């Protein structure tokens, strides 16, 4: 782990004693969690608390930032630093926060409306800049906090209070957008999935913007939206778990796979030993990731896991590097340097005193 008290982060000495190991419950705040009973958010909160404890985060160095919406209440339930900002704008906050203090572990919690409707623009720019932050997108395909209007990820034709005859909007696909925006870590899981903790652990270890879409059930306004993908009996046949370097096999009996005919994917039944014809997952292959992002249930199994990952310089690091480079080249500027930079000139007293002032 990096030294946490570098730069101007703090002037007090780092304690010599070994820090106590924190457990998941140490990250729970004293506030009552106020999501609806049965909401998928509870499972995600538990998973996150486990992940931050297991990955050795310190409470004081961890910051949760959110926008507005059900998911965005998240920071209140974490005993870390937190900021519940304004609708759609969390990416701006995390960028400023990381530029000012690159040492912090920052998580951004958002939803399908917050992140891809009102804040869609900001999300693209966060991803392309590759700010070192873990983005958790709770996608429940509905507006919960405003009581049940369709969201930008709702399926076309969805009947809601604001669309009694069905919604007309073609839905946006967060994973596709994240990949197209230059995201360096793009993954997906569900609130009920065994892979959720693993995906988030990998995300937290990734240096750069890690983007995790979590399919989350809103049991009040959009119950069962992901039932086939999360139901005990249907899950294995509806979901494709992506594993780097492994063939794309799925199904309860592990008897189905994905292969490519030309550049078109197709589902095939496999017999033992027939896995060599299948597509092997490669997290570093952007083209493959783009193709996988377009696969959705029921035409295809829904891919879960890490779609794509790449190493790229993080934005706040580049910003700091330019400061360091300029300082190395020009020396640390002092106030007197600043005041005297540019063209200065000295006026002596009474240089022109022989001239009359008036016509």
């Amino acid at each position: 782990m990096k030294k946490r008290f570098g730069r101007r982060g703090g002037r007090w000495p780092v304690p010599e004693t070994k820090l106590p190991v924190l457990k998941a419950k140490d990250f729970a705040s004293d506030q009552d969690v106020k999501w609806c009973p049965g909401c998928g958010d509870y499972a995600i909160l538990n998973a996150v608390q486990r992940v931050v404890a297991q990955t050795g985060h310190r409470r004081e160095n961890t910051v949760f930032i959110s926008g507005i919406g059900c998911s965005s209440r998240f920071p209140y339930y974490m005993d870390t630093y937190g900021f519940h900002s304004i609708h759609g704008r969390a990416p701006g906050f995390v960028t400023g926060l990381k530029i000012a203090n690159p040492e912090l572990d920052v998580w951004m919690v958002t939803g399908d409306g917050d992140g891809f409707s009102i804040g869609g623009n900001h999300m693209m720019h966060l991803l392309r800049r590759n700010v070192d932050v873990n983005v958790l997108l709770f996608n429940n395909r509905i507006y919960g906090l405003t009581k049940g209007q369709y969201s930008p990820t709702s399926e076309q034709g969805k009947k809601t209070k604001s669309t009694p005859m069905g919604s007309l909007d073609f839905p946006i696909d967060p994973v596709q957008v994240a990949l197209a925006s230059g995201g360096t870590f793009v993954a997906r899981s569900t609130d009920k999935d065994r892979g959720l903790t693993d995906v988030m652990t990998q995300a937290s270890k990734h240096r750069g913007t890690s983007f995790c879409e979590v399919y989350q059930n809103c049991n009040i306004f959009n119950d069962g939206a992901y039932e086939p993908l999360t139901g005990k009996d249907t899950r294995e046949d509806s979901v494709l778990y992506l594993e780097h370097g492994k063939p794309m096999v799925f199904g309860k009996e592990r008897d189905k796979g994905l292969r490519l005919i030309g550049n078109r994917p197709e589902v095939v039944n496999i017999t033992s030993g027939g896995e060599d014809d299948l597509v092997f997952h490669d997290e570093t292959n952007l083209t493959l990731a783009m193709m996988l992002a377009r696969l959705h249930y029921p035409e295809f199994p829904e891919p879960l896991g890490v779609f794509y990952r790449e190493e790229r310089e993080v934005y706040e690091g580049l910003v700091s590097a330019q400061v360091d480079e300029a300082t190395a080249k020009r020396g640390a500027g002092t106030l007197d340097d600043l005041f005297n930079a540019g063209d200065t000139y000295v006026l002596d007293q009474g240089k022109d005193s022989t001239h009359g002032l008036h016509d």
Partner: protein
Amino acid sequence: MPTDTLEPPAAPGDTPPRVARTNAVIRFAGDSGDGMQLAGTQFTDTSAVAGNDVATLPDYPAEIRAPAGTVAGVSGFQINFAAEDIYTPGDVVHALIAMNPAALKAHIQDVEPGGTVIVNETEFTKTNLKKAGYPLIDGTRDHANPLDDPELAQRYKLVKVPITKLNQEVLKDSGLNPKGVNRCRNMWALGLVYWLFDRPLDNTIKNLRETFEKRKNLPAVAEANIRSLRAGYDFGETAELFPVTYRVPQADIAPGKYRKITGNEALAMGLIAASRLADKNLVYCSYPITPASDILHYLAPQKHYGVKTFQAEDEIAACCAAIGVSFAGQLGVTGTSGPGLALKGEAMGLAVMTELPLVVVNVQRGGPSTGLPTKTEQSDLLQAMFGRNGDCPMVVLAPQSPADCFHAALEACTIAMQHMVPVLLLSDGYLANGSEPWLVPQASDFAPIEIDHPHPRNHADAEPPSGEASGPTFHPYTRDANLVRPWMRPGTPGGEHRLGGLEKQNGTGNVSYDPQNHQEMTRLRAAKVAKVADHLPELEINGPPEGDLLVLGWGGPYGSITTAVNRMRERGHAVSSAQLRYLNPMPKNLGQVLKNFRGVLIPELNDGQLRLLIRGRYLVDARGLNKVQGKPFLVEEVEQAIELMLSGEWGDEEALWPERGAVARA
């Protein structure tokens, strides 16, 4: 007065008589690609170095290159340089340099009768006369040439010089292409003006070498410009077109080291100074917008002062990023102009709610909507005061001159960090682009800005905050005597807390929907801002503390108001002026000051926004002089308004609007 002609000098070597002047106002005008801003800037630099007080007014179109030759494409730069203290770029122009017919058309009405008008005769072609929109001559397909109008030569000292042609002759062997040759015309014209006002060329020559030879590695271009500059100067000396030349002696300026500074430069330097004095990194988050972009341009190369700049994807992200910077414990600043301020509104409300320091710079321009991007106005005062949802008070202050932008920025940052409040700094296009000499300060002139950050703590031994719910956790909304809450930085053990836009319980900072708490917090947010006034100087009065009329101003019109009031007092009138630097909270003695005068006049470049506040808050029958022409006040306009007030001829109008430089009752 006869037109000066191009006759050869009668007695070579004779120099025309030199007339000393207290000040002179000159204006360069040409196409927006003609380099008029550069010529004007060079003249300003030279005059400043010569020891004059200077004030400038650049005036350029919003379009980068409006169609050449049209009035819409004319760019102007006005300089007032003086042997005395001046506060404005001048009401009337003493010498106009018009590089084409459109420039003459756009600017001739501002030249004083008898003033010098130098025109680039080569450009008065049929095509250019048509482009400039001069009327057709009856029965022909030609457009009227103003140079043929005898009235022009009678009214002004008209000097016709074929600048384009003469410049081409000088540079025929320069190796530059025709376009490159013509781009040196501005230096030719500048050389001529230097001669007319007895100014040395060395400063400009040095700058040309610096820019083209050293920085851009174009030595041929540097040489060509210098040759044009010298040719213009020599032409003045030998052509004997001018009956007199002028000299403006050095002003009685305190000796010392100076630099010329624009408002935007000064403001940027003030931000850096604040960050160094507070031992913080400055992170300036902005989205490009006229006329605020130059602050970003100035700060971006200052990284070796620990400055970080972030060009965000939009205004909202820029403001949010600056709040993120503040939360991290550094100095977060965002800058914009009117339309951008509207976009930042919700985020500013969050900064108010979370009680974090934030500095929002608004370089005002003509509105509403996109309005007049390159023209000045003061019409965002009410937006700054109230343009957010809810009862959402912010500290608002406004600088009074280009150099004062430095002090105002330093002050804005200090207040924001020491009082944990967002602060709005209201500059304007006139201050931002205008320039004046600035006595270079020393670092030792400034005290460090003391900022307290809470130290790390153990959960177990944390003190419960006084009078509030006790508990082991840090409570972010406890307050000191100034009602200021602690600025706890992430990374501090034991300081974990959550902020947000939902109403907070005073003390604990937990989300609270309690009705009494909301009322108390609304009161506290206002009281905290009001308490800032305890730490601010009282309103100063220019003139006696009581009398017939107080002229109350804010922001950019300070110069025009001060000059007008001083002149009126010299004429024996009981009139004083005051500059309202702090618009929220207002100085504690303002109410009493207003009572000490029989009348109050508020000149502002908007539809009476400060007037509304003063009338509402102090129940004073303040009258307004309102101008929204994209231009600063003329001193004369303010004088006329004062005269109307003092003579009792103003009548019942709440406000008067100047038209064509005159203020009169409708």
